[in-house]
């Protein structure tokens, strides 16, 4: 147990898993000598040497493909895609190869690999370095998708991802790398993929969050004293239907908060599943708080507006809790977007 930043929690999890299992290797751009662009692999080169901690050329397709082959033949590679956008040039290896090997080989060839990538807006990096893109991968059977929301979950989930027998896409909100928290290490700190956690208990609505939206929603709830139950999903594929469903049966209402654009978001999946399974318990229409359907703008205020902000979350939840009516998102108001 100790206080650490999220990037340190990630480095700690990597180091522990590498100690535990000699087939775990780490590859990526500037991950070895420099300790990672976000300092998520600091100390690994020193402890494990260049055979297991590899700086790659700027070749995401090359090293992600290599990870697939290495995983198929017994290694457990963890690759780092610096910004999730760069997964664009490596998507074939992940979606079309890694996700299909087990299926095609009738279970004989698996791909126990982890693709780590930083995600999210809020740092003023502009539209090619600010997306979350979890929806790209969540729709591919054969891939698992996890997304921590703080140092503890980064530690516990990453370890679970590395131990998992299947390819896991591990999406790290980059705005949280520097955030600090207590981390329980060792077996007690381990989390399970596919298991959500209740981040705040409450009775008037179930609010499902993922990654960055968890702390934003928690802050919103505290600030406005909202009686909501926050469920931090942690895993998107598979997601914890049981926990969400049980909560909705208690609260009677469901809201999903996503950082990604509105159309095509995973929140719709959650709402449709829960509506089917808990229809009788719902006393209001479920809805989603999302980003609008636009690329992430650069300018500070516009970017702050883009991400579902704390104040926007408060505004929408307060209105919903009082009226039971799905509120208007900010961008459909005052003729902002026509």
């Amino acid at each position, binding site marked *: 147990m100790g206080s650490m930043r999220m990037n340190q929690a990630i480095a700690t999890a990597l180091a522990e898993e590498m100690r535990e299992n000699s087939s775990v290797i780490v590859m990526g751009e500037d991950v070895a000598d420099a300790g990672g662009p976000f300092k998520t692999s600091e100390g690994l080169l020193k402890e494990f040497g260049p055979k297991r901690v590899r700086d790659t050329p700027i070749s995401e397709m090359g090293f992600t493909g290599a990870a697939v082959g290495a995983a198929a033949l017994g290694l457990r590679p963890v690759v780092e895609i610096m910004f999730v956008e*760069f997964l664009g040039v490596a998507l074939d290896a992940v979606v079309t190869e890694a996700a299909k090997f087990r299926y095609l080989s009738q279970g004989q060839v698996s791909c126990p690999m982890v693709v780590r990538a930083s995600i999210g807006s809020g740092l003023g990096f502009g539209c090619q370095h600010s997306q979350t893109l979890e929806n790209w991968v969540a729709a591919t059977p054969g891939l698992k998708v996890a997304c921590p929301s703080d140092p503890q979950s980064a530690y516990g989930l990453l370890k679970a991802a590395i131990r998992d027998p299947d390819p896991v896409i591990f999406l790290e909100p980059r705005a949280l790398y520097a955030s600090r928290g207590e981390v329980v290490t060792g077996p007690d700190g381990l989390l399970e993929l596919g298991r959500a956690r209740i981040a705040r208990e409450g009775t008037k609505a179930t609010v499902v969050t993922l990654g960055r939206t968890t702390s934003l929603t928690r802050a919103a709830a505290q600030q406005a004293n909202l009686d909501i139950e926050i469920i931090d999903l942690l895993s998107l594929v598979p997601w914890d239907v049981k926990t969400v469903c049980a909560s909705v049966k208690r609260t009677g209402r469901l809201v999903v908060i996503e950082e990604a654009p509105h159309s095509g978001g995973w929140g719709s999946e959650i709402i449709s599943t829960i509506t089917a399974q808990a229809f009788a318990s719902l006393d209001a229409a479920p809805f989603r708080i999302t980003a609008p359907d636009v690329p992430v*703008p650069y300018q500070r205020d516009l970017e702050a507006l883009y991400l579902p902000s704390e104040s926007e979350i408060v505004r929408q939840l307060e209105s919903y809790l009082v009226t039971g009516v799905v509120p208007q998102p900010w961008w459909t108001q005052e003729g902002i977007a026509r």
Partner: protein
Amino acid sequence: MSTPIDLTGVDRETALRLYRQVVRLRRFEDKVYQLFLKGELPGTVHQYQGQEAVAVGVCEALAADDWITSTHRPHGHAIAKGVSMRAAMAELYGKATGCCGGKGGSMHLGDPDVGMVPAIAIVAGGVSVVSGMGLAFKLQKSGQVAACFFGEGATNEGAFHEGLNFSAVQKLPIVYVCENNLYGASTAYHLTTLVPEVTERVKAYGIPAISVDGMDPVAVRAAMQQAREHAASGHGPMLIEAKTYRFAGHSRGDARKYRGREEEDTWKELDPITRMRDAILARDPADEQAITQIDAEIETELDDAVEFARQSPLPDATLAFTDVYADPFPIPSVVGERS
């Protein structure tokens, strides 16, 4: 000691213009650095100090209606191609008067009016896109050429190889400009590449390539004139490898632990500004006055750009929604209804 820049065949006016451009790019970056440290600019910046001769030499040899593609490090390319300091600075401030209206930021400077698509911040992203620009020029028989800037690090991306082969086999009017500054972020090129001469690597695609002193705007300009001529006359693409160095870190907050201060000092002796000034004065000491005047004019231009950016209005929220599509944006109806 560095070799002096050779001004043979370069008239006085051109020499002074090259000097002016190199200094404009440098002073812009120095100012941006200060503003960053002061916290006036959000995000991050990838700076161009040291590499100015490349953008300046290349853009001097391009026609006004030729196009360029750029990278995550676009400030120098943009200003050299004709984006005003005002429009560039305002963009860094996220202002509505910026060249992307405040929606792009440092990594996406560009302006179609000067022949520059918004910079592409995905390494090697421009290398495949530029093929299509060349294809358009060829089909339109326009006589234009597209120049594609990228760093040596980009040559290890698949897009680089696919893009080069495509445009070679289609004989497209493109000049690839590889700015070899020895490092891709924190990693030295020779540690990730067994054939670190880019000119050697592209021979495999049948693309003629020349290596040039990327700290010398006159030499870069001459190489670019030759390459542009080659590309424009239907012989297909050509590549220039400019050997250069970035004086600053890769991006904000890079402590440059991966390279020695001695190496940095050696390259700083090749500073294109000092060398250009020395060459001009060696030819005619009386140009001291012209140089002083240019320096002063640039300070005025720069102060004006910063003032303009500071005073400019912020984009309003409606702007985030314009230009996602050609047509007005269809909002999915997410507003609820009472049962």
